[in-house]
């Protein structure tokens, strides 16, 4: 019974996906929906295989651009998070500024970045970076700011320095928050890259979709969408696995049920 339940849970998302695709295909065929409006899954797959070469080239470009922006975002996000989370003054000073900055639509930043850096990879990397560092900062800061005062007292009474408290308690404690934010940040980074590529690039999936769209080649546009989602989901899973490996102590309840 338990084994059956578990097998069902593992297969359920795939079954739903398959059902959706079949439904989608059927609707397109039965109502004779034109490929220019809403391509059927079969047309998208055909397009994927037909343009496999160019698509993979553009996908690679988008992927490494995203990774570069994400890497900068992680470094900056963690540093800012540590700064904001371990000092009240810094929290009061920087947090309102960061909230303000975060509420700026990042797509509005792309033209500015283009003026500064020209079109191409650099504005895409920067857009991915500015869109993804904030959740990391907030989460790391939260992890640090919610240390139990008693626990800090135990260490401080032994003469522990602020760095000791940070290394022994603060950082390990904020790891689950950090990994949770990575899963959000990586998907955001893909959005940032694609937005920038759409507006200002001659490379990448964003550019591919833009130019395919302007030629009314909708199956290719959808193929681009599929490629982005697959990359984003794959990276999400990578961090989900890392999270389970490194911070199993924080999600033990979920593991026990899974």
């Amino acid at each position, binding site marked *: 019974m338990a084994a059956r339940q578990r097998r069902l849970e593992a297969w359920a998302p795939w079954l739903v996906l398959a059902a959706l695709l079949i439904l989608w295909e059927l609707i397109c065929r039965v109502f004779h929906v034109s490929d220019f409006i809403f391509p059927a899954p079969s047309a998208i797959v055909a397009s994927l295989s037909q343009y496999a070469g160019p698509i993979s080239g553009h996908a690679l470009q988008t992927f490494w651009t995203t990774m570069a922006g994400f890497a900068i975002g992680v470094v900056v996000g963690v540093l800012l998070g540590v700064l904001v989370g371990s000092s009240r003054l810094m929290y009061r000073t920087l947090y309102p500024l960061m909230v303000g900055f975060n509420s700026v639509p990042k797509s509005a930043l792309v033209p500015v970045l283009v003026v500064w850096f020209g079109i191409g990879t650099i504005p895409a990397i920067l857009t991915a970076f500015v869109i993804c560092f904030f959740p990391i900062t907030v989460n790391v800061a939260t992890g640090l700011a919610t240390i139990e005062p008693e*626990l800090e*007292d*135990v260490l*401080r*009474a*032994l003469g522990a320095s602020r760095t000791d408290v940070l290394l*022994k308690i603060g950082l390990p404690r904020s*790891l689950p928050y950090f990994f949770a934010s990575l899963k959000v940040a990586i998907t955001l980074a893909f959005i940032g890259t694609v937005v920038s590529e759409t507006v200002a690039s001659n490379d990448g999936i964003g550019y591919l979709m833009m130019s395919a769209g302007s030629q009314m080649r909708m199956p290719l546009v959808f193929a681009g969408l599929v490629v982005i989602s697959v990359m984003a989901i794959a990276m999400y899973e990578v961090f989900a696995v890392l999270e389970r490996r490194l911070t199993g102590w924080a999600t033990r309840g979920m593991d026990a049920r899974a």
Partner: protein
Amino acid sequence: MSDAFVEVEHVDLAYDDVSGNAIEDVTLSMQEHEFIAVVGPSGCGKSTFMKLCSGLRRASKGSVMVGGRAVSGPLKIVGMAFQNATLLPWRTALDNVLLPLEIVEPYRSNFNRSRETYARKAIELLRSVGLEGYEHRFPWELSGGMQQRVSICRALVHEPKLLLLDEPFAALDAFTREELWCTLRDLWTRHRFTVVLVTHDLREATFLADTVYVMSKRPGRILARRAIDLPRPRELDAIYTDHFAEIVRELRERIGRIRSA
């Protein structure tokens, strides 16, 4: 009184300028190896008194001497345990107990070299509180009472001279609490550290302490000092004797008077 280990004289402590004194004109002295308990109504500054002894807080007025020296910062010879076990969930029981040794000198500088020795010592300590076989369990795999035992081991592993306990057994059920009273009694008998136990539980104070201090409500003052003359070693049976009941009732009456005042 010059041989007192802890000497607190006319101490006031205010956290800020607005809220007034948390404790006021507190004077008491403790001999080395003495076990004192501080009882009083909620929010009477018992925990403040503890922070004072640990060097985490400085007195606004008056002086605190520990081991013959004025307290001017964290003492390093203290161990602390609280109502919540505050164990680190990513560390096993053993690694939780070892934490102070990673912080405090002289253990800190040769922690990596002597890890084996320290681990053996920590395991020995865990065994002495009845946690044999649980060394490599994580905190969430332990019951509340076991977690509190680990927490007490963590407070003792660096062989502190002064053990500060802030309502350590308050969150436990009655039977576990009585078990842990005996555990603490045995540890204290064996290692002979000095103890400050902050508690609400008059039976706990009477059973464990040499001297009980009753504090008033905020601002906390010491209203009474009661030496507990029950013979040692004390067994749990002692709780049911008339003399024990008499002491508890006497303390209770003092607390009652504070509350109605």
